[in-house]
Each structure stands twice: as C-alpha cells, then as structure tokens.
C-alpha cells in the first residue's frame, strides 16, 4: 500500500462531497417526480442524473418503475404500479387514479441506457454484497461521467474487496478520459491498484503510439505515471500467476495425495498390489452420495453439514470392503504379488459392476455444501475456490491423522513391527494376521476418505476409480515404497509439475510428459525418491 494514492483519493472524496453540496438536491421530491413524468425528455434525463448524483437509494423503485414502464402519469398526478396495484411513488400508500386514463410515462433509448446505469449505480449502495457485485459488473460494461460522484461515494463506503476493486476499475476507466490532468493521474493510480489485463489494456490504449498520437495522452507526467502503473500491473499479474500456479499445484497435489495415501499404506507398507484401490475411492464417493441423500430426505435443515457424517461413513464403508477383500482374497496370496495384482483387479471389476447394478451406470450428483461454493479473493485477479481450499485442508488433516496413527499409537507400532520383520514380530507375540487385516482395512478406509474428498470436485460414477489407479501407483512408486514422506513429496511435486506444464502443453500432454518423466525416473532410481539404502541383492 502506498500513501500518495490514498491522499489523492481522499482529496477526490472531498471534491465529490463539495460537488454534491453544490447540487443541493437530496431526495426525490414532488417537483422532480413531476419532471420525470413530464413530456420533456431532457428534463427526465437531468432528473435521473440528479437522483444518481445525490445517491438517493429511495429513488430506486421509481427509477425501476420508469424503466419497466410501470410509472404512470394521470394529469398532474404520478402513480406507481406495484404488483398490479397503484401506489403513490413518494408515500407508497395506495392511490386511486383520477378520472381519465393514466398513461405510461414514455422513455427513449438514451433515457433507457441512462436509467439502467443509474439504477446500477444506486444498487452499489444495496446492503447485499451480491447485488452490489452484480451492479458493479454491469457498470464495468459501460459507465458515464454522470455516475462519478455516486461511484466515488460507493468506493468510499464499500467493504467487500471484490466490489471495491470493480468500482475502482470503473472509476479509473472513466477518469482516464477526463480533461483534468489531476483526475487522470488519480485514474492511473486507481487502475494501478486493480492489476488486471483490462486495466493494463486501458492504460496502454491511453498511452497510444506516442505523445503525438491523437487521442493518446499528451502530458508527460501522466505518461510517466501510466508507464509506471503498467510495470506495476505486469509485476502484480506475474505474482498472481505464480501464486495461482502454486495454489493449483497444491490443490492437484492434495488430490493426488488423498487418492494415493491409502495405497501408500496397503502397497507401500504392506507390499500388497491392490488394483481395487481405485474402487475403494469410488466406494468412499458413493458413501458420500448415500449420506447426502439421507440428509436430504430426513434432515433437510442440516444438509449443509452432511460431509461431517459422510467422511466417517466413507471411511467405514471403504474400510469394511477392504477388510472383506483382505480376508477373502489378499490373505491367501501374500508373497505372490503378481497373483494379488490379478485377483484384486478381478475384485475391482466386481465392485464396478455391483455399483453399476445398484446405482446405475450414470454419474450420480454430489453437490458441494453451500459454504464450499464461492471463493476468497487473495489478490486482484486471483480467486481461490473454497472447495479447493477445503480439499487441501482435508488432505493435511488426513495426513496428520495417518502420521499420528502410524508413529504415535500402539497399533502403529505393531504395524511397523510386522512390516519390518514379520517373523520377529510374530515371535514376540504379535498377532500378525490381525495386524495385516487392520492395516489393510485402514488403508482402504483412508482411500474411502479420499473418495469422499474427490466427490466434491469431480464426477461420481462407477468408473471414478479407474481414472486414479495409474496416478496413485505412480505417486507411491515415485515417492518410494514404504515412505509416507516420499508419498507426500511425490504427490506435491507431481501436482506442481503438472500445473507448470499445463499452460505450455495442455492438460493431456502435460500428463503424458509427467508419466514419461516418472517412467524415466524409475529407471534411474528404481526404489523411488526415498530409497532406504540396502545391500540386498534383490528386494521383494
């Protein structure tokens, strides 16, 4: 934040107030109403302009009625048609039309445009932020000098960052064409504070081909200011792009992590090649869908909070399926990874078809709770969606949970013991089959949590898991088997690299490039990023 622009905008506000005082008129009164209803087009126009200049929100209903053809004139009397009834425009009391026909007050195109803008400008003072945002968006398409005082006042009292920014850029665009050099400087400064490609375009247009260019800025001070502002905007845009890229990478990385974390346990720690891992994600997503439907049917009031119940449900559902899978298929095939791979692939086909038969082959609709829609504006031109932020937070939460479980609990201790030396653990009295079962179910449950998260950002259908199976394995293999930290780093790294490549190569080629990179990387370091160094001639 710089101080100079603030001073100048303060000066601007004072000037605007003075301007308002000079005009005098404050609220819509009978006289101006009469002018509005008169046959004189220019009198109507000036009345509308006055209403806007005074920022008279009370005039809104009348102006809207005029625009929509609901303002009627019957002789001297002016009437407002509201929901089919006639009311007095000032008092809002029911009114009766006098003898004779009440006629619609006519408007021409020029007045219509002016009215639309005036209404939008007045809506900038609406108590609801959404209305203000809509009005500002409308005004961005085109505003005229008459709106200046209203815009300045709106800017001074606006709290919402997004609306502020829009109003500022509208003001900047308006003042840039002003004859007053100081106002132009103020405009340049306002646009500098809204670093968008639009601001940059406006400034560059003003700069033109050179000082001699007709229509271009001729004053050297202003030209310098514009040059500086463009540079600032370029820097800010670059910054926004970098932050956006990092955030996009983080978001993709957290999705990958959620998809792969369960696998990091079943494959990474236990060495079980679970090709049905993707389907465990899918089960988590469908569990979320079922919980959502239950909430809608039985607890419609709390449906915004269905995720609180859906996450544990997804964990349990996927965990149960995982436990069943371990007992029926995986257990018999420990130590035979290739057979495990094929058998679990068979399980994945069964699960896909079972879901298809139960829920149908089409995607089901899982919607974000309302608190997840929208986003937070961190800087100009960069809105971070809440659902992405929620996914990142959730990934961190799950990660911390898993880490605590593995490193800090008795179960985690047993898991590590069995994975490191099964025979020794068994010899010391650890019930290894139970530990295997619990570990596998845990990994499956975490996959279910991942599925619950994925349901918030993508389609939920029977093929959901198939799309993630290759990615998940790549993350785990790249990170190094048996290394949670490696998995985290691999997921984050892959997310960033993918997002970095996307602008140059497109999403598909970026993904192919990343796959090719992983294939090459594994050739160089077959044990992944965090390979424990050992001397064994072969690893399992």
């Amino acid at each position: 934040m710089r101080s100079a622009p603030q001073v100048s905008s303060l000066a601007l506000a004072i000037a605007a107030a003075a301007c308002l005082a000079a005009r005098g008129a404050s609220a819509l009164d009978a006289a101006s109403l009469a002018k509005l209803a008169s046959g004189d087009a220019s009198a109507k126009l000036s009345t509308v302009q006055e209403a806007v200049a005074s920022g008279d929100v009370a005039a809104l209903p009348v102006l809207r009625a005029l625009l929509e053809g609901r303002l009627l004139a019957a002789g001297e009397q002016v009437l407002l048609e509201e929901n089919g009834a006639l009311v007095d425009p000032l008092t809002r009391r029911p009114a009766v039309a006098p003898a004779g026909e009440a006629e619609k007050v006519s408007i021409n195109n020029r007045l219509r445009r002016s009215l639309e803008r005036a209404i939008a400008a007045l809506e900038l003072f609406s108590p609801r932020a959404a209305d203000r945002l809509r009005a500002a968006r409308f005004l961005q398409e085109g505003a005229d000098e008459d709106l200046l005082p209203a815009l300045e006042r709106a800017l001074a009292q606006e709290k919402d960052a997004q609306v502020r920014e829009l109003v500022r850029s509208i003001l900047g665009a308006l003042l840039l064409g002003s004859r007053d050099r100081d106002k132009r400087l103020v405009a340049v400064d306002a646009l500098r504070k809204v670093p968008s490609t639009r601001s940059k375009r406006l400034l560059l247009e003003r700069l033109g081909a050179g000082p001699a260019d007709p229509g271009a800025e001729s004053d050297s001070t202003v030209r310098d200011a514009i040059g500086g502002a463009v540079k600032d905007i370029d820097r800010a845009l670059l910054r926004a792009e970098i932050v956006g890229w990092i955030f996009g990478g983080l978001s993709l990385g957290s999705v990958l992590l959620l998809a792969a974390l369960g696998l990091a346990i079943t494959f990474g720690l236990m060495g079980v090649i679970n090709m049905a891992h993707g389907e465990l994600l899918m089960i988590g997503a469908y569990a979320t869908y079922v919980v959502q439907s239950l909430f809608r049917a039985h607890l419609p009031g709390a449906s915004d909070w269905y995720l609180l119940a859906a996450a544990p449900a997804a964990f349990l559902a996927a965990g149960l399926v995982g436990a069943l899978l371990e007992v029926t298929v995986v257990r018999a095939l420990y130590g035979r990874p290739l057979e495990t791979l094929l058998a679990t692939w068979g399980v994945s086909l069964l699960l896909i078809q079972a879901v298809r038969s139960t829920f149908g082959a089409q995607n089901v609709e899982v919607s974000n709770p309302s608190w997840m829609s929208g986003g937070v504006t961190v800087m100009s031109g960069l809105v971070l969606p809440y659902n992405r932020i929620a996914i990142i937070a959730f990934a961190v939460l799950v990660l911390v949970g898993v880490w605590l479980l593995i490193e800090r609990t008795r179960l985690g201790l047993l898991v590590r013991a069995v994975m490191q030396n099964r025979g020794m653990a068994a010899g010391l009295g650890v019930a290894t089959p139970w530990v295997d079962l619990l570990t596998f179910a845990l990994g499956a449950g975490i996959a279910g949590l991942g599925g619950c998260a994925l349901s918030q950002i993508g389609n939920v259908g029977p093929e959901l898991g198939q799309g993630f199976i290759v990615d998940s394995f790549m993350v785990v293999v790249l990170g190094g088997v048996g290394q949670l930290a490696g998995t985290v780093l691999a997921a984050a790294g892959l997310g960033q690299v993918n997002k970095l490549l996307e602008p140059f190569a497109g999403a598909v080629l970026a993904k192919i490039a990343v796959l090719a990179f992983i294939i090459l990387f594994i050739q160089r370091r077959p044990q992944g990023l965090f390979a424990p160094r050992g001397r064994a001639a072969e690893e399992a």
Partner: protein
Amino acid sequence: MTGVFATARPLESRRAVAAVVAIYGVLVIVVPVANLLAPAGSAFHVSDYMVTLLGKILCYAIVALAVDLIWGFGGILSLGHGLFFALGGYAMGMYLMRSIGREGVYQSDLPDFMVFLDWKQLPWYWAGSDRFWQACLFVVLVPGVLALVFGWFAFRSRIRGVYFSIITQALTFAFMLLFFRNNTGFGGNNGFTDFKRILGFPIASPRTKVALYALSATALLGALAICRSLVLSKFGRVLTAIRDEESRLRFCGYDPVGYKLFVWTLSAVMCGIAGALYVPQVGIINPSEMSPGNSIEIAIWVAVGGRASLIGPVLGAALVNGAKSWLTVSFPDLWLYFLGLLFILVTRYLPRGVVGLFARGQTP
C-alpha cells in the same frame, strides 16, 4: 514362484505337435469350406459372423502366447501388451485408411478425420503410408523398437516384478491419452474405421475375410512354432532360470538383460503382428485398445489357460473371449461379474490354469 507352472517342457512330444497341426488343419480347411461352400441354412454352414469371431480369437491367442512367453517363461508380467497390439493395429490401420482413397465421406485424398480437422496435407509421419510393404514393416518395427528401447532402460536398471508391471501399465496409459488427442493425427477418439479394401480386395467380402482368418491361423501356428523352439532350446532354459532365480543366474555369470530384452521385444512384435491381422477383420481400431484394463485382461487369458504351457494361453484366449462374445450379447450385466470372478478364482484356486487340470503326474 515355483510350482505353479504346468509343464517344464511344453509341446515337446510328437503327439502334442501332431495334435496342434491337426487342429490347425481343421481350422484352415473345414471352416473356410463350411463358410464359402455350404449353403446358408444348412447344418454345416459357418456364418460370416463366426468366421470374424474365430479370426478375432486367433489374433487374441497370438497376443496371449506372446504374454505367456514373457510371463510364463520369463517371469515378466506386462500390463502393457495391449499397447503393442494397438500399435501394430494402427500401423496397419494407416495403410487401410489411405487405401480408402476418395471413397470417404468427404471424397478427399486425406482420411476423413483429417478433413474434419481442416488439415490440408498429411502429417510427416503419414508419409508413404499408402504402401503395403511399408505398413508391414511398421507393424513389426514400431512395437519392436518401442519395446526394445523401453525394455533396455527397464531391464538394465533391474526393474522387475510388480514395479515392471506398474510402469508398463503407465506406459500404455500414457499412449492411450496421447492417441485420444485429435491433434496426434490418428483419428482421436474414433480411431480408424470404415475401411474399404486391402491390397485391392474389398474388405467386407466373405473371401477376403476367410483369407484373413486363415492368415491369422497360420500366424498363430508360426508363433507357436517359434515359441516352442525357443523354450525348448538352451535359451529357453536360461529364460526359465531368470524366472525362477534371477540373482543366482547372475552370480553364475549370465547377464539376464540380453535374454530378457530379446524375448520381450519378440513378444511385442508378435503382438504387433496380431494387431495388424486383427484390424482388417474387425474393421476398427481406436485408443480404447490401449486402456490398462484391456492389457490386464490379456493376463487373465494366459492365467486361465495355464502359464508356461504354450497351448494354455491359446486355449485361455479362446475360452474367455468365447464366453465374452456370448455373455456380452445375452447377459451384458453379467459379463463383468464373470470376468471379475474369473480373475479371483483362477489366481486363487487354479494356479496352473485349465491345462493344469489335465496335466498328469505333476503335483503343484
């Protein structure tokens, strides 16, 4: 790893060889005669649909044999052999697309999908694709070279077991994504279809179909012969040793890389040839052939038939695909259940496959 393989020296006896040749004779003489000469409606008539189905299964059998060669004998489970099959198919498909000539929808010299993308000329890698001999060369070279390069990197850094399986899966997945793109120049989603003729013969005529079918049967016989001589030779013994005890073999002074690389590349080439025979018979090739699921399915054909038995994979491909073409028509919902259960039950209870049921005197 030991003890799950049907016979140590498959197809060794003269009787087995004679049986295979006899079956081949029946396939290439009886079926064409029954299709072309027996009047439709007679009890001996074999329909065109059946000929295409049999031809398809024969191509799949070649693929299964190729996978058996590396998995059953070399212990290398590839989850990407669908890629080599599809690449062979695409190489042949390019020729077939060019031989449509101006009979396409847009009556252009370019294939229809290129006209649709508003391309004005053929991309460089389509140069000479109207020459049949070049297509045949590419059918062998493209999968072969890709396998050679990939295998060289992988085997040299001693990637094996499930790691190898997973990266072959990633490989075919990456290629599938690549071929799905319209701009890659291979027809995107739709791939190649609407072929008109091959070497001047109309592709839809029964005679052409029978000829392609007979060619597939012959190719399968040839592949069996090559695989048999390979696994019965000293080379085959080394290969089996790699499967069972690679480290020990290395300590004995053998370098497994060359052996693995040779058999891996040979296997890929066999798949490419199978793909090239498959495409003109079914009349379409698209990137879904490269989906990871397809490649895993190949492994189950081999497992159902019985690994390391040469004849098992052929049998397995026939059984599974026969069941598939029946189930997907009659009970479409049941097919995935069937396939899924097959995967589970065969790996769990039938480690030696169908062939293992008939193998005498060998306990697992």
